[in-house]
């Protein structure tokens, strides 16, 4: 299915909040919601991928979200419990952001060469 661009601000507020929240606590799963049907959970996960695509199309619209998507690899996962299905989102730092954050002096030197 092909995606069409829509402003990132028009996505559900719960999704935008969840992404920001997940980025505050990296590597910790953040619960996006509970669903009775797995299809609904999958649809919301697809919405996050669509949001990422839209943010990347024009980074100037939501620079804060673009920064989060650059800095973190956002993964969704679905778990099943006795009530239904739970959708989680986890922000994992990318290798580049990890390198820049933990090796600031070396990163400055290297980035000055490649950029």
């Amino acid at each position: 299915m092909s995606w069409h661009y829509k402003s990132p601000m028009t996505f559900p507020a719960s999704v935008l909040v969840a992404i920001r929240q997940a980025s505050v606590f990296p590597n910790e799963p953040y619960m996006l919601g509970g669903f009775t049907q797995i299809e609904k959970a999958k649809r919301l996960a697809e919405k996050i991928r669509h949001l990422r695509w839209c943010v990347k199309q024009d980074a100037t619209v939501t620079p804060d979200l673009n920064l989060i998507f650059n800095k973190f690899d956002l993964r969704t996962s679905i778990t099943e419990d006795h009530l239904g299905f739970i959708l989680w989102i986890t922000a994992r730092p990318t290798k580049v952001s990890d390198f820049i954050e933990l090796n600031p002096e070396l990163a400055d030197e290297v980035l000055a060469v490649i950029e």
Partner: protein
Amino acid sequence: MPAQKPISREYRIYLALWRKAFLTDTELTIKASNLSMAVAMRQGMYRAIRPFRNGQANDNELREAAEKFIIFLVKADEKNDPHFLQIRRRATLSELDAMFDTLGIDEDDLLLSDERKINESLKKIAAEKLPRQVKTPFFTRDE
């Protein structure tokens, strides 16, 4: 010829680190947040330099850097603790280089048979006398 893939920012950083180690001839230490990140970075560094090491991409500094240095993983006690990667000199190469005189070998002994044949034929060509130039009035320019 297949089109060359654009190099990602991550790989550019890795190549810059290899080059820095080679140009400054120093051992670099890189900090990673946990074990899996350190392992992934180490694999990425080797993947990034592979085409230069194999001769598919041409960059003498990077090729020599791959020959001279290795990436060593310094493990921490816990998986989730910060781990370190060290770009170290290849110990075997440094030791063998130091043992050149004792072993009684020089740079020529390191050549393979094909390379020796090429070198010999080049020497022969260089040793051959140039054909004597015949001066005729026809080819001289009148001032």
